[in-house]
């Protein structure tokens, strides 16, 4: 591989902490109190964020959450109303898009339709005035890396969607940017191709050691790709964490609901100890135990969040009586690998439970209108105060 000088060893030693967990580590990209207004509308509202070298950071949010605006400010297509953006320690204020050490892969790919694949990839190098022979060599290498070496002479409209995506990636990477911005990189691909491409993207990122910032609305994409996820809503970053933490320890109702599906029981804190909480929930019809402490005022109304796959469902009453509620199965959706149950509680609350289909036969298992017990462990649920 010709990019050997750029190959970076993946973090092998387990004890080596990722950069974002190290005290005093120098961020590669620093976003400082950045705000962007479009007239009255605050698209990005006072965001501060540090992204470290070789990270694959995902900005995850719905449409209108401001994620694309933030990305466009990094590329230089929009100017922040206030705040600073520093890339590798350099303030980007007043630096034009064509002068930034940043390249972007566009959602529509934005391949130049009048140029061949090779010329599309060479475009960035030609602007730099790189020697012809060098351009030829680097374009060939880059096309080989994205497995399109044989299609250099084609025009973009003669390629399939997946091939176009790879041309766009090659074109964005050829200038060896310090920072690559990807706007919904897999959005236009079908499901199967998307899964393959996800891993390809991660491999390329690790091989080249470029810092990636990815914008996506697809939580699955974010979970698979990212080293860290920043969940955005209405112009602010609600939570920044590693994928596992975002999923297992959401810090708000919004994040819990946005990523994956979740059941929420509203209730009042009745006992709050350092390492456990008891919450009286009318919706659940019982007292719920959670084995982590929270900081809240007494009698505060909170939500207990529990993921559908963490709830166990049984016809017999479980021996351990904690976090056990009763209901009636209203609906069953068979999805092949798993089944989804919708269980109606006495309070009228609907609970979603998923269970892997361990065996092939479904016959002796649950059916509609079965009275069932739902239960989960104290460490499976999370208390959300906001």
């Amino acid at each position, binding site marked *: 591989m010709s990019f050997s000088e750029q190959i970076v060893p993946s973090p092998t030693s387990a004890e080596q902490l990722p950069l974002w967990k190290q005290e005093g580590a120098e961020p590669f990209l620093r976003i400082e109190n950045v705000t962007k207004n479009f007239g009255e509308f605050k698209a990005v509202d006072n965001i501060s964020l540090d992204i470290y070298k070789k990270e694959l950071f995902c900005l995850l949010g719905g449409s209108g959450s401001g994620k694309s605006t933030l990305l466009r400010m990094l*590329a230089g*297509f929009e100017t922040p109303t206030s705040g600073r953006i520093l890339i590798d320690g350099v303030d980007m204020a007043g630096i*034009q*898009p*064509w002068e930034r050490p*940043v*390249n*972007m892969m*566009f*959602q*529509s790919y*934005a*391949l*130049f*339709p*009048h140029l061949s694949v090779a010329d599309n990839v060479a*475009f*960035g190098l030609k*602007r*730099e005035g790189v020697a012809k022979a060098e351009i030829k060599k680097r374009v060939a290498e880059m096309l080989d890396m994205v497995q399109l070496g044989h299609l250099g002479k084609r*025009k973009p*409209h*003669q390629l399939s969607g997946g091939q176009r995506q790879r041309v766009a990636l090659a*074109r*964005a990477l050829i*200038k060896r940017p310090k920072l690559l911005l990807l706007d919904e990189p897999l959005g236009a691909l079908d499901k199967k191709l998307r899964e393959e491409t996800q891993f390809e993207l991660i491999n390329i990122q690790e091989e080249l050691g470029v810092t990636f910032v990815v914008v996506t609305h697809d939580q699955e994409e974010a979970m698979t790709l990212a080293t860290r996820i920043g969940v955005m809503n209405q112009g602010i970053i609600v939570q920044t964490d590693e994928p596992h933490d975002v999923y297992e320890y959401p810090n708000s109702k919004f994040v819990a609901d946005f990523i994956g599906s979740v059941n929420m029981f509203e209730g009042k804190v009745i006992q709050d100890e350092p390492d456990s909480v008891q919450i009286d929930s009318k919706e659940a019809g019982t007292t719920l135990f959670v084995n982590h402490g929270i900081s809240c005022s007494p009698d505060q109304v909170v939500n207990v969040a529990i993921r559908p796959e963490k709830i166990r469902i049984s016809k017999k009453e479980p021996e351990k009586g904690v976090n056990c509620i009763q209901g009636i199965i209203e609906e069953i959706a068979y999805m092949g690998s798993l089944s989804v149950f919708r269980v109606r509680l006495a309070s009228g609350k609907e609970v979603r439970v998923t269970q892997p289909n361990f065996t092939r036969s479904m016959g002796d298992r649950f059916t509609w209108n079965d009275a069932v017990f739902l239960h989960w462990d104290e460490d499976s649920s999370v208390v959300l105060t906001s």
Partner: protein
Amino acid sequence: MQTKSRFLTVTAGLGYLFLYAPIFSLIIYSFNKSKLVTVWGGWSLKWYSELFENEQIINAALLSLKIAFISATLAVVLGTMAGFVLSRFGPFKGKMILSGWVTAPLVMPEVITGLSLLLLFVAMEGLFGWPSGRGTLTIIIAHTTFCLAYVAVIVQSRLASMDETLEEAAMDLGAKPGSLFFLVTLPLIMPAIISGWLLSFTLSLDDLVIASFVSGPGNSTLPMVIFSKVRLGVTPEVNALATLMIAVVAIGVIGAVYQMRRQATLTVKLDDK
């Protein structure tokens, strides 16, 4: 089904007859031996040879081609600039006025355009001494003025349908706004510019009214010469000239259609791969 298709055949036949019968009668009569336009006197090519000996007509034709070529080229340059500003500069002061000014010649009666330009030229000559007199230059200016409106509209709509992220991508890859225009935008709007040029060329070649207002003595364009000849009675020479022009246009149109068909099938074939 059978009756319907017969009905369609008849309608189509009538349509073609209505469109092409005058043209065919013109072509046939251009080979008429007789001096009288409406009386058939046998086949002959003599009006063609007389046409080529008629210096007035040949000079007028050459002048018309020259004017059409220059004003189409100028109109393309100015019209592209206007179209670019209108579709890419976002909102700015005076945008309405510019866009109104650009589209006005499309809806203005030619007589008014011609008259207002004549008045302008006369006033300018009085004030600055330029353009002195009326002639080829004033016709070129006048034709550029109304042709650029067409170019601007065509270019503007092409730019509007063009993906703006292409330009952003070019900037992102290091192209400064100047080179961006020539490397990405211009090649992509080229089809619009070419059709704008062809349209301008045709309009200029075709124009009688405006040219009549702003031309001077000794600067008669081909339409003006034909028109003045026809007023004195149609001569068979004009028939011959018209036939030649139809031949040129037909060859041009057939060539263009053939080229487009070839490109379309090429694209389809490659897409199937």
